[in-house]
């Protein structure tokens, strides 16, 4: 049976993992390669490497990180953060990334989705979207530039459009729940999962084991992503998967 996926996200700045990383037993707590190896051993199904600085200088370091991760971790991984050209995508894929995630650049120029899908295949193209509920309504709006700019675009319509353009997956982060650790944003996750024929990765809000189960059942997500929860060792990937397995949600157990 096809399993639900648990995906740790590494937020990377200047080649270092950031966000209160406190691993035990590894030399360099901020080394993304060591973190990736550890998550792989704990049973992560995929990894997301997010270049949160993504400045001109910062860009070179992410290439090195991708190359090193690809030499030591043999599960699929996605790279994202400020990627706006097919040349950059090609280079990251060549270095060993399996998928590229695009966020704001896809909103500014949606043709990047179809061009990337034509060139590399839909399975390589993840459209990441940051959304926030429009207060007092049942609608969510798409934000860009790290959540600073409200585009006014309807989240469900954008997801449908992205899928039509050839996106292979949607990485959906709710700004309402992100960082709150009170659970994923189930209503919008479900709305989008029901509206598009491609897999949805739920992101933002995981704080307890049951939150993962909720996103994968009520939210109808295909995968659930978390960053600080795993970085801060609040729980391990292994614990999440054991919990899901006990609750009859199909997961890959090592």
């Amino acid at each position: 049976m096809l399993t639900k996926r648990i995906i740790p996200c590494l937020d990377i700045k200047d080649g270092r993992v950031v966000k209160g990383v406190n691993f035990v037993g590894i030399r360099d707590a901020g080394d993304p390669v060591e973190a990736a190896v550890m998550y792989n051993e704990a049973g992560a199904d995929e990894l997301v490497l997010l270049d949160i600085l993504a400045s001109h200088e910062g860009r070179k370091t992410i290439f090195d990180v991708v190359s090193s991760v690809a030499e030591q971790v043999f599960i699929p991984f996605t790279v994202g953060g400020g990627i706006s050209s097919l040349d950059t995508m090609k280079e990251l894929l060549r270095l060993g990334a399996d998928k590229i995630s695009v966020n704001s650049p896809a909103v500014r120029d949606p043709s990047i989705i179809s061009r990337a899908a034509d060139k590399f295949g839909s399975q390589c193209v993840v459209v990441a979207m940051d959304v926030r509920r429009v207060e007092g309504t049942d609608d969510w709006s798409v934000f860009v530039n790290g959540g600073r700019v409200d585009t006014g675009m309807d989240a469900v319509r954008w997801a449908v459009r992205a899928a039509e353009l050839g996106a292979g997956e949607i990485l959906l982060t709710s700004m309402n729940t992100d960082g709150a650790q009170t659970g994923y944003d189930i209503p919008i996750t479900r709305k989008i999962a029901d509206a598009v024929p491609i897999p949805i990765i739920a992101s933002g809000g995981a704080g307890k084991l049951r939150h993962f189960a909720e996103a994968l059942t009520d939210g109808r997500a295909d995968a659930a992503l978390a960053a600080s929860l795993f970085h801060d060792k609040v729980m391990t990937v292994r614990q999440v998967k054991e919990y899901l397995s006990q609750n009859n949600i199909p997961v890959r157990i090592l």
Partner: protein
Amino acid sequence: MKIAILDYDVGNLRSVSKALEYVGARTVITKNPDEASAADALILPGVGAFRDACESFRQSGLEPALRCAVGAGKPVLGICLGMQLLMKDSTEHGLHEGLCLFPASITRFTENSAVDWSALKIPHMGWNSIKLNPKCPLFNGLPDVPFVYFVHSFCVKGAHEWSAATCEYGEEFTAAVWRGNLFGTQFHPEKSGEVGLQILRNFIAISEGRLC
């Protein structure tokens, strides 16, 4: 011992070579038929569409080297679309002939109207469990029901006498093929974690004559 990864301008060959090197193989990514023929074993990778990949492969001049290796009983492993190229034909973008090393057609998952596909997303992407033919040396030392990583929309339907592994997605399909020293996996061993690395270790051992 050297394993040649055939480069005919499709897909990410680096992932395959990095994984093989991680488990101790010497590899060469090559477009050169002589270099391919000189290797002890061959890997036929591939992503993308069947027709384009088949055309590129035929134009690459590598086909005789591959057929020669298969004829000589050298270990050969096709991965994902590389496995599909070993088949008789495919219906992706019209009917196109493959290398005919196995007598099966590649068809789209959704071509079987007896299955309700509305609840299943295509491509079949992610980790799925496979049922193994325990006699196949490629699967030596694996757990009974291993999970491997798939990304594909087309497949060989059903189980055949040469199916080395099968998988369920809507219906049963062939996840790996095997005849003599010719192997193919629909999944990606280079992205299937420790299970995938063990499969690659086995392929190396077969290539070195330590496993058969």
